[in-house]
């Protein structure tokens, strides 16, 4: 962190490094310092909020990773079980299978009855309530991508089901969706690329109601971050690999017992399994603009023992990256739908000039555009998922979905706030949260996977 050691204002608080202070600037800075002083609080001049205390402790301290359970090695080091690709009949169809419809129905109810009512509190606390996490295990979220023969529910590639579930969950809340989907991301990754030994060692833990918190860590705190060239490195030793580097956007890192971490091995990116009890791991809270219920953290790795997950030539890593982006697209669609549903009701109720604001084209057309772009996002995401499930190439389709969901998703978040005017800016309504959450799409890597 070179910028924090500099004395000028540049490089801090989101300022460009070219910024310089003039005399008035110094005066303002001094006032600002006073305003920030806890002296004010001690003498009772200002009411201390729990949030300030929380933020100071959460982001200021690094903690050791949780001790975690011991995963006992089982099975042999040959290739693991793989589910088959979905077979296509060659018919254009937008109807989910019966199984998918039933699954989505369950998740929708969960999202509506459990997730949405917890969303504001979870956002505030930067953590998803324990009861919600427990309930998510009951509906089997971690094992959607785990093969039947290994105790999961997947009979074939589940990318479409995964997208539909992520969309339905995010309609409740994006942050909680990420928190509850994170263990499944790791379990799915082990199902897709793990050896027999890795599958038999780790997957059984995900199938019972004590499933561990786990995180897929692909992002890094670097501007213009290119996930195909992570700065985290892997070094081969006599007894496996060791990893060194910093990962960001790590979901529920503070409680995670197992990580899948992206790192460069020689000239190609690869995936590695890291147990929280491995040593050489530090977790730093990293509260962000949104997706706060996901309990985002940074993961500091220094010579941390790790096992290679999947191939070392970059192929499995790249596929993982694509499937993770795809999951973020689905989250954007679900959140966008939440915005659309909310503003539709609001603009029909809110009166101005003697009639509902919805009766004005300038308002109504914003809603129309929101609906059009949302449906386009959904279809492009579905197409990428269906190609992935069918074993077809899907790099292009994921890239297009990712581009569209990042750009139009943010526009939906922006318009969602605008359509409520000043009321959209206050926390009485959820649109400001959706605005913050939707900014995650396009820049987050990892965390979720379908």
């Amino acid at each position: 962190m070179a910028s924090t050691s500099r004395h000028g204002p540049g490089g801090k608080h989101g300022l460009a490094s070219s910024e310089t202070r003039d005399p008035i600037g110094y005066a303002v800075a001094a006032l600002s310092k006073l305003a920030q002083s806890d002296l004010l609080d001690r003498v009772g001049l200002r009411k201390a909020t729990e949030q300030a205390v929380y933020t100071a402790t959460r982001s200021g301290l690094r903690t050791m990773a949780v001790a975690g359970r011991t995963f006992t090695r089982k099975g042999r080091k040959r290739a693991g079980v793989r589910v088959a690709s979905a077979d296509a009949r060659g018919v254009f169809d937008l109807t989910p299978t019966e199984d998918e419809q039933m699954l989505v129905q369950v998740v929708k109810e969960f999202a509506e009855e459990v997730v949405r009512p917890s969303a504001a509190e979870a956002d505030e606390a930067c953590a998803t309530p324990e009861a919600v996490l427990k309930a998510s295990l009951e509906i089997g979220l971690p094992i959607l991508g785990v093969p039947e023969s290994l105790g999961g529910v997947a009979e074939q590639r589940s990318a479409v089901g995964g997208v539909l579930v992520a969309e339905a969950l995010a309609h409740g809340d994006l942050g909680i969706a990420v928190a509850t989907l994170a263990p499944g991301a790791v379990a799915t990754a082990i199902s897709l690329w793990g050896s027999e030994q890795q599958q038999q060692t780790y997957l059984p833990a995900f199938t019972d109601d004590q499933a561990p918190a786990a995180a897929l860590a692909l992002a890094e705190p670097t501007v213009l971050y290119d996930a195909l060239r992570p700065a985290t490195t892997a070094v081969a030793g006599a007894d496996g690999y060791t990893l060194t580097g910093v990962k960001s956007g790590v979901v529920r890192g503070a409680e995670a017992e197992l990580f899948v971490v992206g790192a460069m091995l020689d000239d190609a990116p690869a995936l590695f399994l890291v147990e929280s009890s491995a040593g050489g791991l530090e977790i730093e809270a990293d509260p962000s603009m949104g997706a706060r219920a996901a309990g985002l953290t940074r993961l500091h790795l220094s010579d941390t023992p790790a096992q290679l997950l999947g191939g070392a030539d970059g192929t499995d890593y790249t596929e993982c990256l694509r499937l993770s982006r795809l999951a973020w697209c689905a989250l954007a669609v679900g959140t966008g739908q939440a915005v659309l549903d909310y503003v539709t009701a609001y603009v029909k109720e809110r009166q101005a000039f003697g009639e509902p604001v919805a009766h004005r084209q300038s308002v109504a057309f914003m809603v129309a555009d929101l609906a059009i772009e949302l449906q386009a996002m959904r279809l492009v995401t579905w197409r990428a998922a269906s190609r992935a499930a069918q074993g077809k190439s899907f790099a292009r389709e994921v890239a297009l979905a990712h581009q569209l969901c990042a750009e139009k998703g943010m526009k939906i978040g922006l318009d969602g706030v605008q359509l409520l005017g000043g009321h959209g800016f206050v926390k009485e309504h959820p649109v400001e949260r959706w605005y913050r959450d939707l900014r995650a799409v396009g820049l987050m890597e990892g965390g979720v996977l379908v």
Partner: protein
Amino acid sequence: MINLETPRKHRVLVDQAHQVAMNMLRPISRKYDRAEHEYPKELDMLAAMIDGLSESGTAEGAGATGATQDKAKRDPAKPAADKRAADKSESGKVRNGANLASVLSVAEMCWGDTGLLLSMPRQGLGNAAIAAVADEEQQRRFGKLWASMAITEPGMGSDSAALSTTAVLDGDEYVINGEKIFVTAGERSSAVVVWASLDKSLGRAAIKSFVVEKGTPGMKVERLEEKLGIRASDTAVITFTDCRVPAGNLLGSPEIDVRAGFGGAMATFDNTRPLVAAMAIGCARASLDLTRDLLEQAGVVVDYDRPAQAQSAAAARLLQLEADWEGAKLLTMQAAWMADNRQPNSLEASMAKAKAGRVGSQITLACVELAGTVGYSEHELLEKWARDSKILDIFEGTQQIQQLIVARRVLGLSSAELK
């Protein structure tokens, strides 16, 4: 099972259309852009070929006539559906029929040339209207005609309630009076489907469509417009002065049902809007394909796995354009698929038209910009596609009309509430 690929049964058709577009339309594309109003005689050969393919059954839905409505249940509130597929399908089975085939093949043809596609003999928008609402007898009489569509008037565009052309029953004939503008293929077609009011005091419910065959006394092509784009297609001004047509030329029911209102005439749009969206998709893809190639020659290659902001500005822009294009294409396929499966699709048809219409302009204009003076010059077709695409955000309902329709449906508001 969710699958958004080109249907297996339509792949041959799409490939054929692509070959025709590449080998028959592209070579004459610039020629008829320059020679506006000159009849593209090459198209007669093409039309004969398509007729032949239709006879053999391999060209299902190769043009506008492919988008048809289910004859068994013709209800303005009900969606269009593919009658052939409906005949042989089992209940509950997902169909990929003529509507989907039509949008896919029309997109391919417009990848070749939009103006020429609009000039294809016997594939006019009027044919789509006839196919959508004609009874069996009318189908037999008018099915082989080349029919254009006459809706717009000098004082009326999107606001059909302001329509002033009249049709008065006199014995067993209707007498039509009025002036129509913007009639695509109005000079070349062998018939015109005209919108006229039976009783202006009853508003839109009284608007009916009539088939007027060429040579009918009282019908006159006044002039052809000179246009920004689609110059290969003629756009006519046609007047009707005491023009008499048999009563049987009225398409649909002659009853004026004020309660059902305008639905009958508007139902056609549920079929034709996805077609126009498909035109925009085809035209825009022509621009995208060429621009991608030109950029690759200049050393700019889009990497789908790297974030846009980590690539060159030109690559990022291309990625953005392609993403919008993909969204427009899938919305269009959705609208057609719903029609094939008898699901109401007015909302989705308008969504597709709105998205494809504006994306068509954004893409073709951005491609000119990306290619610089190479794109601006007549040496390439990029500038032409940027002119051709504009009309696709206008006819069959402008961008703003589509937004109005989408907004009313999403918000559940009437036309009185949301004007």
